[in-house]
């Protein structure tokens, strides 16, 4: 018995050792590590192909793509950077939050003006306050938050889609109507994300900043939107199952419900298009619809993810130049079915899915309607702190751990506490 065990252990050890030796073939080329999260194969496969192509064309540089879960970008990356480790480049969504780690690659890119010209407004989202010239990377995809509807369910129910200018209340009402008529369990579902809540909140009049431009989270606009979300959950318009499935500020998307056609109306964003095209396929028709309105605006949130450099060297510059080039970017965007973060890019979308095409048009068309507050919020370094405060406290209120009044107080306190920790005082 013991014998057997030792025998096995040792043989496994030998095999592993030899395998490791074999795999430890070293490259003489400069390594560039990219930490990448992808929304499934739809994004991972195209980027991997581009990297392979780059490596083939540049024998002196070896780009290594580390595909990680989104969680790792949100949680592991910051702590690695804090410890002085971390990749050369990462695909990041907390654009401002990590700005103290970004490296200025201006000296190493072929043409800095190309970045200014192509990604101009977004570059500021990465920069430290007061900095107006550094180049840290580029917008991989631009995103706009906004709703989708299950068009097939609307058709079955015989209810017409609402047009531009419809309010949130109106959308909620028709969603309930469709759900009732078709026996669909969940009229409405939202991504569990403070970022997602913020567009509608701004529509309701939320300002997020005081007159000095400092964060001031809770105001009447935010209260109105969060109260509405709270009410919808209590009334069953939204399912507590989704937001209750995790805790704190953790992101969670209702894709499983959506794919199973259990949701009539889903508040998410443009990055889902590629996924829906892939996963929903033929099961039902889905459309993106314009952002519903509140008294102040009809806006979603802008956003997106950027490839940002944590090390400045010629190899990193070269990789950035390559990936941000019009040719590569349009090929990538075309395959992942996203909205380009590049201001001047012709994209030939690689899909024959009419739903996807329609959704891309809708979101691209929504960009100009985005409210200035939304842009300012997205550009602010500490926006994540606000997003997290909204979602974790709202989540608690919805499951009954506190009243909305308490939640609002807490939201402000959370923001204040965190900023104090970060900036001292």
């Amino acid at each position, binding site marked *: 018995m013991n014998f*057997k*065990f*030792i025998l096995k*252990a040792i043989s496994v050890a030998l095999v592993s050792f030899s395998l490791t030796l074999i795999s430890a073939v070293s490259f003489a080329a400069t390594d560039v590590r990219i930490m990448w999260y*992808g929304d499934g194969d739809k994004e991972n496969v195209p980027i991997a192909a581009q990297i392979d192509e780059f490596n083939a064309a540049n024998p002196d540089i070896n780009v290594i793509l*580390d595909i990680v879960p989104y*969680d790792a970008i949100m949680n592991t990356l910051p702590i690695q950077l804090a410890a002085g480790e971390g990749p050369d480049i990462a695909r990041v969504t907390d654009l401002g939050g990590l700005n103290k780690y970004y490296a200025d690659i201006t000296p190493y890119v072929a043409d800095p003006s190309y970045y200014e010209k192509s990604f101009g407004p977004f570059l500021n989202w990465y920069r430290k306050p007061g900095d107006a010239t550094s180049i840290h990377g580029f917008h991989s995809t631009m995103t706009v938050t906004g709703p989708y509807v299950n068009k097939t369910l609307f058709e079955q129910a015989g209810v017409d889609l609402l047009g531009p200018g419809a309010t949130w209340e109106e959308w909620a009402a028709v969603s309930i109507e469709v759900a009732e008529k078709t026996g669909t369990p969940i009229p409405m579902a939202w991504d569990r994300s403070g970022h997602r809540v913020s567009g509608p909140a701004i529509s309701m009049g939320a300002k997020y900043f005081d007159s000095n431009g400092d964060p001031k989270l809770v105001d009447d606009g935010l209260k109105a939107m969060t109260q509405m979300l709270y009410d919808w959950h209590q009334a069953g318009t939204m399912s507590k199952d989704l937001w209750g499935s995790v805790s704190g500020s953790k992101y969670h998307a209702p894709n499983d419900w959506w794919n*199973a056609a259990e949701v009539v109306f889903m508040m998410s964003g443009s990055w889902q298009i590629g996924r829906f095209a892939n996963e929903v396929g033929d099961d039902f028709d889905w459309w993106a619809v314009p952002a519903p309105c509140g008294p102040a605006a009809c806006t979603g949130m802008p956003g997106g993810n950027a490839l940002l450099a944590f090390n400045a060297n010629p190899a990193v510059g070269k990789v950035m130049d390559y990936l941000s080039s019009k040719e590569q970017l349009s090929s990538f965007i075309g395959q992942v079915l996203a909205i380009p973060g590049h201001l001047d890019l012709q994209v030939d979308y690689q899909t024959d899915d009419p739903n996807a095409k329609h959704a891309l048009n809708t979101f691209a068309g929504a960009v100009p309607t985005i409210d200035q507050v939304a842009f300012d919020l997205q550009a602010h370094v500490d926006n994540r702190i606000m997003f997290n405060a909204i979602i974790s406290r709202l989540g608690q209120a919805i499951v009954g751990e506190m009243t909305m009044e308490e939640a609002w107080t807490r939201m402000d306190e959370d923001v204040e506490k965190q900023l104090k920790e970060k900036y001292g005082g």
Partner: protein
Amino acid sequence: MSETTSRIIKIATKKRYKNKYHWTDYFSYFYLFLGVLLMFGPVVWLGLSSLKTLAGIQEYPPTILPLSQIQVDVEGYDKPLPIFNVTQEDGSVKQLAQIKRIGINAKMVDPLNPGETVKVPIDKREKIREFKIQWQNYVDPLRKYDFLLYFKNSTFITVVATIITLIINSMAAYALSIYEFRGKNFALVFVIGTLLIPLTIILVPVFYVVANFGMINSLWGVILPGAATPTGVFLLRQYMLTLPRELIEAARMDHASEWAIYWRVVLPLSIPAIAVLAIFSIMWRWNDFLWPLIVLSKSEVYTLQIGLNAFHGELTSQWNYVLSMTMVTLLPIAIIFAYLQKFITTGIASTGMK
């Protein structure tokens, strides 16, 4: 009925007291039956589900066996088409292949009469399915997503960490059991003290230390921090205390160095305890999650658990892969267990550790 079966039944129904069953007898078998269902059921269900297509997995209510929709080649169409049972207006049911679905209607064709298409409301059709195992769920991740590499990394970590753990812990246990020396009690308290510090509590500072050694994204960064386990030292020490002192003295008389006594006398004699620790170490290392999650962020150093978590990442709920790779992750442990179950269970019972 074979003789063995009838014997088993005879034994099974044998009464404890000659003439009556006690209610506890009935209850015991009921409880055990329920236990088997509850303990094994989830794993069996996981195994079955891991063989379904993604659509089959998402289906509700779920089918027990892996089924998938039958597809047929229809003349005039490039791709195979899925087959449905369609309820006709007269109530009869007909098998039709679907060409395309538009809104709430489906354009369908009779495979036997490919020339003619019909429009069918989608709620009148029902998928026809057959038993089909989706091996792709296993093949894809293993091939496309480097799961074999993760497997290798997990194996490397498990084996190397176990070897290191066994050696250094047995050395410490040897010192703490065989010798009497100044500071021994201090060393014991020192080791006991660390028993109560789970890694979770000192996560950040340990990360800090590991980062200072440049072991981030290195398998060694996972292997080394947990190499000295107080539980291991205690288990081995407790066992070594039972070894006859005279053996060690005999070895000393035989001109053995202390090191030779350790590896030629004490180590071979402690094999039962070492095997228990080895099994635990294998279990800990193979199942380790939180620490590798923090230390390893490069795909080529991923372990199975981390790879599994990546699949389960909220942006990529690919349950088909998640389930199959969960199976892959638990299989080695399950196999080792099946092989050594008696040894493991008695070993644990006698040492009372986990």
